[in-house]
């Protein structure tokens, strides 16, 4: 199932005593190769996506009719309390991190990462966190709500160890992410290929850099909050105990700071994917590379600062709320410019409507809907009406599913050939996309209609006669359709892993450096690290190869000075051995 981590590398290393090859699973579990760690991250994140889908289906089945007695409130609350961390901390963030771990070093022409063991450690921390959270299902998981806000999560109201398992599991995963972020940031600062200035770094990797800083800053803040809560629960601390002048609101601030950072993280990840995928399929460069960089930087700075927009109803001085509203509304400018940038990239292009491109466009659509909704709720008086209702949840879901699921699947379609040497099935991928997008919009519309009538989030039942029956049925149907789409796509990926159509190392004729390596890349990534002269190094390499090929031909005197034609990317990717793929790998450094 797994690709061999060592491909046939040309510079052969000959030693007297070759180390004995370990069993495949030990090799997989202990390899510090960034590509192996990235694959593990992606696989684990997709496994947790299955768990999140199952949780969503159970919750929406309970909410399909009013006053349903299918599940007890305790059961529902356990699922609800682990759903948010499953979706965000165990699926969305690690999926992005896995792609960053695999692709980013390749994109900047690095032969490895700065701290490979820290990289591997971060994965095992994250996975043990996930197992801790789901392990608590063996006895009694947390019932303290999606972020375990005190005082509800204090021992007086949650006196089982489920909350402790929740805290430890989330903290382990976050500790892993902070370790990962350190490695990512240092790698991208120090190990870029010669000539790979920041202005030439592909936007996916620029997003990786920003996301690295985001997990370090926001993850550490949440780690501090979780530590304080753990001390409160187990060692008699009073950080959040109002009886001893502690402040329950403090935890809300810290937790919302983290979740706002995670939200910005997912938006930036998706922005990076879209900014890499659209140019490759529209077959023209991104409209403005620098503007996209600036916009993503602005989102990374403004995003976490909007945390208090989730707390408009709390006792906080007005000036802070107005500041949060300002940051939240100001986010419209960088997000709007990014969308403008993407549409201008499509404009005048010749878009190959492959699944990756369609997923990217669907991600733009879903994130636009969600972010516009969030913009509406970020007006303070509107927030007083809509926050904490399923309407606000609908907008957030559009952004998170649009960014992490649609954006993540766009990335998977795009880079699957690099990771496995095979295409991810196109037909099933497009069918799954249709199901996910339609399901998402039906779900969001139903949740929105229920939310404006005042249905709170996290509630295990609703009452008939309040106009909530139709919207909840709608939301449930949408969620089921979305779940079918996600599972279809995961099945598609599992099938294509071993049985997909084999392709060469550069199936999309893309511009960035990861396509210069073989598929899957050898352990050292590149035989030759190219000299980067522009933001589209692979175009330069192709042009140089073409020039040399042309120079071998006898020049006809009729048009001696005719410049070589613009390198035309292939119309459609073909199986192995097509185009200039064979020549690019192993070519001399291109001047």
């Amino acid at each position, binding site marked *: 199932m797994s690709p061999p981590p060592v491909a046939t590398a040309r510079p052969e290393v000959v030693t007297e005593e070759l180390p004995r090859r370990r069993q495949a699973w030990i090799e997989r579990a202990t390899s510090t190769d960034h590509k192996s760690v990235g694959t593990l991250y992606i696989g684990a994140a997709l496994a947790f996506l299955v768990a999140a889908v199952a949780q969503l289906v159970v919750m929406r089945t309970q909410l399909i009719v009013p006053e349903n007695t299918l599940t007890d*409130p*305790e059961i529902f609350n356990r699922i609800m309390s682990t759903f948010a961390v499953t979706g965000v901390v165990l699926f969305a963030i690690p999926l992005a991190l896995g792609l960053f771990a695999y692709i980013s070093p390749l994109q900047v022409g690095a032969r490895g990462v700065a701290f490979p063991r820290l990289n591997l450690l971060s994965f095992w921390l994250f996975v043990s966190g996930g197992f801790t959270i789901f392990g608590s299902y063996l006895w009694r998981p947390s*019932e303290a709500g999606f972020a375990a806000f005190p*005082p*509800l999560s204090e021992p*007086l*109201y949650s006196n089982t160890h489920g909350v402790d398992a929740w805290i430890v599991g989330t903290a382990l995963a976050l500790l892993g992410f902070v370790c990962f972020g350190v490695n990512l940031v240092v790698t991208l600062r120090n190990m870029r290929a010669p000539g790979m200035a920041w202005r030439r770094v592909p936007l996916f990797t620029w997003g990786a850099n920003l996301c690295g800083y985001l997990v370090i800053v926001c993850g550490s803040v949440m780690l501090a909050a979780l530590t304080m809560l753990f001390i409160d629960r187990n060692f008699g601390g009073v950080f959040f105990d*109002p*009886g001893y002048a502690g402040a*329950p*609101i403090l935890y809300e601030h810290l937790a919302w700071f983290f979740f706002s950072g995670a939200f910005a993280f997912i938006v930036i990840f998706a922005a990076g994917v879209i900014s890499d995928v659209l140019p490759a399929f*529209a*077959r*023209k*460069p*991104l*409209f*403005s590379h620098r*503007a996209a960089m600036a916009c993503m930087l602005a989102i990374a700075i403004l995003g976490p600062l909007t945390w208090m927009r989730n707390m408009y*109803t709390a*006792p906080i001085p*007005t000036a802070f709320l*107005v500041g949060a*509203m300002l940051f939240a509304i100001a986010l*419209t*400018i960088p997000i*709007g*410019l990014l969308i403008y940038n993407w*549409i*201008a990239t*499509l*404009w*005048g*292009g*010749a*878009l190959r*409507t492959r699944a990756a491109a369609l997923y990217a466009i669907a991600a733009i*659509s879903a994130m*636009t*809907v969600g972010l*516009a909704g969030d*913009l509406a709720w970020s007006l*303070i*008086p*509107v*927030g*007083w*009406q809509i926050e*904490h209702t399923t309407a606000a949840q609908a907008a957030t879901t559009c952004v998170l599913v649009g960014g992490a699921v649609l954006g993540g699947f766009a990335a998977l379609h795009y880079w699957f050939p690099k990771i496995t040497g095979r295409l991810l099935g196109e037909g099933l991928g497009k069918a799954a996309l249709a199901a996910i997008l339609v399901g998402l919009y039906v779900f969001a519309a139903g949740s929105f*209609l229920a939310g404006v*009538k*005042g*249905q*709170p*989030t*996290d*509630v*295990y039942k*609703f009452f008939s006669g309040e106009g909530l029956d139709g919207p909840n049925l709608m939301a449930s149907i949408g969620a089921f359709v979305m779940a079918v789409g996600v599972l279809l796509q995961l099945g598609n990926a599992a099938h294509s892993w071993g049985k997909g159509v084999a392709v060469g190392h550069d199936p999309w004729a893309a511009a960035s450096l990861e396509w210069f390596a073989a598929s899957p890349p050898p352990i050292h990534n590149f035989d030759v690290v190219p000299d980067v002269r522009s933001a589209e190094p692979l175009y330069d390499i192709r042009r140089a190869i073409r020039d040399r090929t042309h120079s071998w031909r006898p020049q006809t005197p009729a048009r001696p000075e005719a410049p070589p034609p613009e390198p035309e990317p292939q*119309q459609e990717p073909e199986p192995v051995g097509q185009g200039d793929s064979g020549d690019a790998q192993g070519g001399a450094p291109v001047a």
Partner: protein
Amino acid sequence: MLSLALAAGALALVAAPAAASVLGPRAAHSPNADDIRTAYWVAIIVAALLIVAVHVFLIGALLRYRARRGRSPQRFTAGARAFVRPVVPLVAVVVGLFVFGIAMMSDTRDVQATGPDGLNADAALLAQVNDLSIPPTAHPLNINVIGQRWLWRFEYPGGRPGDRVFSYSELTVPVDTTVLLHFTSTDVTHRWFIPALGGQVDAVPGQDTTTWFRADQVGTYHGQSMSFSGSGFAAMRGWVHVVTPQEYQQFIARKRAGLARAQKDVVKALGESSATGGAP
């Protein structure tokens, strides 16, 4: 063309109230809820316009610039002033929404005085309670609301402290009267929300928060706690009965008499039980 536009306009006029009842919050029955509705409709229309604008261009680009035989992409990138055109409207939207948001926030928080049909309850002692500014002529009815799992306890003004009239889950107030609700909680954080009578507000243990409303119509309005509080969360609902001032006075008198009677019964029962040596 013109007739088509007119027909569309007429259809919109007919359909708008129906659509508003589906797409909008429950009908407002208090000035602060009115302000929230105004802010809601402006924000949701701006958001809808942004969504439509993006999708027109996105779908347009998708349909128009697909790869076809003989089409080669125009490899252009942004010129020096390429972002002036989109920045100007975006900045206008941001500034407009920000200013509008602040204006509507302070409108919502401006407590309005009790109307002519209302009950002139207390003299306003304070001009400012938390973030609410209260005019001297407000004559508000001050009610303490205590959130506890999983109900609301309302303490009405009048009477000695510790001997005040109270009720659970159902609040009775006079119509056209400014009502100030002072929240706290005895256990976990709860969140008060009666959509017809204004926005949400947290009831946090150890802190006090305030909101206000002035119901314009006799009737019963309901809502539900919005902050997850454990297994009984779904049942933590609230009802506000808005009655005439006379009915309110009768309600308070009836409650007070009932409480006094209950107290007497308790004292009597205690006396009997002590007389029989603690046996029931």
